[in-house]
């Protein structure tokens, strides 16, 4: 094994801080050092005094009784992705019906974001947003190879698909021609 030679075992006691947090009572419930059940906590249902006013649409998990006392407000559900999200939040968190639509909504949201950019006259700088400058600077050969491969495969697919159409067209033409006789 190549690495064995460079992995010389160290005497742990020479390491600064060795054993200073050792705790023989570290039991399996840790890190719940102050473990208590709801009966031991007379105010287990208590909530903060002030609740953030719900002036925006907040999608609440059905596994929760209330909207939490504070919540984030950016990027409210909107458009088709918003409709999918609203449906997803009707289901408990242990169901695929909750999570898979959210994954779909995220992808729809991405397309909606692109459309929104374009409709506002903004052409997204995909090269910059994907940080390709870093690939160009630090990983050029692999990056160029990858891009060339993707380009070649895409071009191949386009050619193949369009030739399929042409073939279909020429087949139809031939059929039309033959049907005259």
């Amino acid at each position, binding site marked *: 094994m190549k690495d064995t030679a460079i*992995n010389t075992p160290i005497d742990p006691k020479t390491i600064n801080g060795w054993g*200073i947090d*050792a705790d023989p009572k570290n039991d399996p419930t840790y*890190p719940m*050092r102050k473990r208590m059940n709801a009966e031991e906590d007379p105010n287990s249902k208590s909530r*903060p005094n002030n609740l953030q006013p719900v002036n925006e649409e907040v999608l609440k998990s059905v596994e929760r009784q209330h909207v939490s006392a*504070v919540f*984030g407000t950016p990027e409210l559900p909107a458009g088709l992705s918003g409709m999918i999200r609203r449906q997803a939040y009707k289901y408990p968190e242990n169901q695929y019906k909750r999570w898979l639509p959210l994954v779909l909504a995220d992808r729809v949201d991405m397309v909606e974001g692109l459309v929104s950019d374009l409709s506002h006259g903004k052409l997204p700088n995909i090269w910059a947003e994907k*940080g390709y400058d870093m*690939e160009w600077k630090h990983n050029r050969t692999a990056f160029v190879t990858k891009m060339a491969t993707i380009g070649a495969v895409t071009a191949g697919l386009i050619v193949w698909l369009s030739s399929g159409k042409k073939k279909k067209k020429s087949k139809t033409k031939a059929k039309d021609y033959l049907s005259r006789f």
Partner: protein
Amino acid sequence: MLAMEYRGPKRVRAVQKPMPEIKHPQDAIVRVLRACICGSDLHLYNGNIPDTRVGSTFGHEFVGEIVDIGSEVTNVKVGDRVIVPFNIACGECHFCKQEMFGNCQESNSESGAVGGIYGYSHTAGGFNGGQAEYARVPYANVGPVIIPADMDLDDAVMLTDVIPTGYQGAEMAGIQKGDTVVVFGAGPIGIVAARCAWLFGAGRVIIIDKQEYRLDFARNYAYCEAYNFEEIGDPVMFIKKITDFMGADCVIDAVGAEAEGNTLQTITGRKLLLQAGSATALHWAINAVKKGGVVSIVGVYGPTDNLIPIGNAMNKGLTIRGNQTSVKRLLPRLIEHVQNGVLDPKGLITHRMPLEEVADGYRMFSNKLDNCIKTVLMPPTANQ
């Protein structure tokens, strides 16, 4: 203000956004002085966490200066420089009372499983994050901790997540003196977990990854043995062989959803999203730990299901522990360790970039370019 903005998988940019506002009497507004890109941000960046909405600002590792406070904020004042723990916690609910600040019941409406986290999708509460010039900090009486006068801001920003999470990874592993500890993943969290394993008395610490530069970094920073899983063959067999076929006493999964090393897991977990990420590291952890051993999970997975050998976990009598880190609980001890020179948080930083170049920062960290371990983002207002 300038802020990072998510546009879809692997697409982010820096844009002008409205200033955050006080929405609750216990809110504060912080001018961000340092923000980091975390390994778990990559799960969002790659589109693996459901309900990550286009337009969101990521960033759960940041420190800053308080510039505005709500009417009920008494523990911090305008002008204070604070460490902002990545979890948002009310301090009053049943879970916060047990110091489970990562499991607060009053900071996330959108899920019952996880508390609120800055800049970590609507599944974690829909809060904007700190990869921006300014950020809203709810429950400012509970979370923020004033940065000690003698502490470097670079050290402080590492205390918002990476150091506490690595430390809790080692803590949850239940390490006893002399134990053999294996850490899967030599990213920043794994490296810190390996370093902290010694603090709990480990007798041998081994880290497994495939990036040579990270393994080299781990050897130097965490004084541990480091092995490349592409060279050692099956990592589980390797660990069995070097532990007299017993297995390691404790194994820490510091990888999570982006794991490489198993084609089936990669395709179903990372490419097709049929699982909540690739569970390769967790799979190895369960199989590499000894009977009756402990598996500690600090790697982040999505909320759906994962393929793991739960039958082996039962047959071996394992204890599996995991949690979002309770940063607030750990900060006093960790600040002490930093001040006493036991831990060197800023030693993890390899790159520093202006916030304007956030897209480059994500690409570099995600694809492990230029020997990147940890990137700090500097907002334009940081030097004011």
